[in-house]
């Protein structure tokens, strides 16, 4: 992406911007190492990333919010270490973001229009939230325009669009059954521009920055899996990188919140952990400034990075779905055992009935035998 590098000629490079904000060289190098680790690159790549960021101009970035809870924005800003926020905000020159920008109303919409007009095909568009399609998309309007129209214009003219979080990826929670607003993900309504999906509820900001840094360093978007999610962030199964895994194999499970196993950090499988079927880098990328992650903190993974997770990963606190229409208490096992017991009872009844009839039949047969003899 040669052209991307001279996006905004008058603007400082990533590194210059960071230095202006008072980020030390040391913090900058730490950030580059973190990015190398996130991208699953050897540590020797950190200087290469640093070199690239020293030269690269900051790409313009607009952040659209549709049917969302703002959770990805929260996650994006929630780093407790201020330099990380600075770095992230400086690597990404955020030109439009309703939640964090100073202008409001018409002025805000104007900044968006400016980017779309002046940087056509050169800016990155991040989308947070699902896009309703039912009834002409009236269920989500911003500044009087339907989300779907905004998305088509803003995503459609971007260099690349990043669908941040489960909702922007495949409709997420707004699209959960029965999906009253006909909510869909970005990929379902936008075509013609590269889309990177960052599933998860929320997506980890490390993966967003990683995607942009990958682009700035290598000039290309990262390789993706069949969900369109970058392999560096979504190529490993939670279960395979989980620190509780040895307890899983051993058969040591938390059976109740707060029990001895829970206090000892045993596996959360029995409590409904969806780590065995979820692909995301939570155990290694970690959350909240790399302090911990949900399973590390003692809560089971709910599979938030899986397709349609609100429909397919519930119940979150049980491994097996309950039978619809039978009530919560009727587990598959109860119904199944009921079937087996009923069968055994049926067979027994048949045996008893037969024993009773055998007696009658013998008499019948004797009669028939007698008639035949005649």
């Amino acid at each position, binding site marked *: 992406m040669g052209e991307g590098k001279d996006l905004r000629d008058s603007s400082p490079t990533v590194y210059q911007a960071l230095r202006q904000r008072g980020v030390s060289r040391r913090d900058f190098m730490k950030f580059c190492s973190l990015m190398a680790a996130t991208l699953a690159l050897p540590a020797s790549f950190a200087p290469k990333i640093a070199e690239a960021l020293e030269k690269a101009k900051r790409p313009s970035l607009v952040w659209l919010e549709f049917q969302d809870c703002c959770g990805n924005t929260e996650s994006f800003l929630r780093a407790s270490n201020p330099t990380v926020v600075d770095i992230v905000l400086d690597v990404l020159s955020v030109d439009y973001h309703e939640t964090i920008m100073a202008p409001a109303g018409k002025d805000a919409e104007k900044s968006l229009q400016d980017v779309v007009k002046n940087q056509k095909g050169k800016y990155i568009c991040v989308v947070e939230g699902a896009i309703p399609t039912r009834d002409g998309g009236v269920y989500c309007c911003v500044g009087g325009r339907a989300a779907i129209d905004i998305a088509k214009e803003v995503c459609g003219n971007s260099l690349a669009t990043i669908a941040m979080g489960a909702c922007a990826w495949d409709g997420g929670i707004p699209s959960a059954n029965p999906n009253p607003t006909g909510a869909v993900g970005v990929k379902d309504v936008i075509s013609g521009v590269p889309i990177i999906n960052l599933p998860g509820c929320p997506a980890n900001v490390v993966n967003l920055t990683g995607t942009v840094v990958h682009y700035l360093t290598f000039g290309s978007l990262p390789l993706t899996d069949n969900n369109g999610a970058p392999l560096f962030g979504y190529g490993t*199964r939670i*279960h395979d990188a989980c620190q509780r895994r040895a307890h*899983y*194999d*051993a*058969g*040591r*499970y938390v059976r109740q919140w707060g029990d001895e196993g829970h206090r000892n950090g045993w596996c959360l*499988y*029995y409590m409904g952990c969806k780590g*065995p*079927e979820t692909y995301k880098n939570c155990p290694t990328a970690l959350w909240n400034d790399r302090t911990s992650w949900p399973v590390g903190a003692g809560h089971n993974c709910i599979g938030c990075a*899986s*397709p*349609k997770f609100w*429909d*397919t*990963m*519930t119940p979150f606190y049980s*491994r*097996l*779905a309950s039978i619809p229409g039978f009530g919560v208490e009727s587990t*598959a*096992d109860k*119904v*199944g*055992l009921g*079937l*087996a017991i009923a*069968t*055994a009872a*049926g*067979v027994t009844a*048949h*045996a008893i*009935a*037969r024993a009773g*009839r055998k007696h009658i*039949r013998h008499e*019948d*047969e004797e009669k028939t035998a007698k008639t035949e003899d005649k």
Partner: protein
Amino acid sequence: MAGAAEVRRRIYVWEFPVRLSHWVNVLAITVLSVTGLYIGTPFLYPVSDTAFTMGWMRFLHLTAGYLFLMMVALRVYWSFAGNKYSNWRVFVPRSKSQVRDLKEVTNYYLFKRSTPPYDEGHTACAAFAYFLLFLIFLFQIFSGFALFNNNSHTAVHFILGGWLARLINIKTIRFWHHMLMYPIWAFVIVHIYLSLLMDSSGKNGLLGSIFGGYKFMAGRG
């Protein structure tokens, strides 16, 4: 009926592959059910610091699963290569005589007939039950490998079941993989009961046939 000294024909009904797949499957299904239940609800508590309970359970389930797959494949192959009693044609009642047999056997089970009809191979009723059972077997195999697809993404595992995980979500697959174990159990209960019943009332060595392969039909047949 003729007296005790009747002449009986000895017919080779169940060839070795049929008997092999039958008994290996009995073993495999027993192991699959016990280990599967543990995988679903780990009911054992760890006894030592070096326990590998779930590891072994999954190993056994997978091993038995592969064995089961091979035996089901063998039996399907044998329904083309084997004798007329094991041929695929017997499993779905289509011909007139099969439909008649189905009715007669049902009548016998419902006490509308005092003796069972005289079949050398499976009765049409049994054969149809086996057919339905085989459909469940196939589903268990595909769904089992679809669940295993989270551990292994190889092409072989994709063919054996991974494709199913692309069509249906894992939660639904796991639910049915678990649930369909119970109809298999129900089948086994009825199956053992009817084997004993038909053995005693048919007097054709039915029970022995699944061990030795031979049935002993009364001379008149």
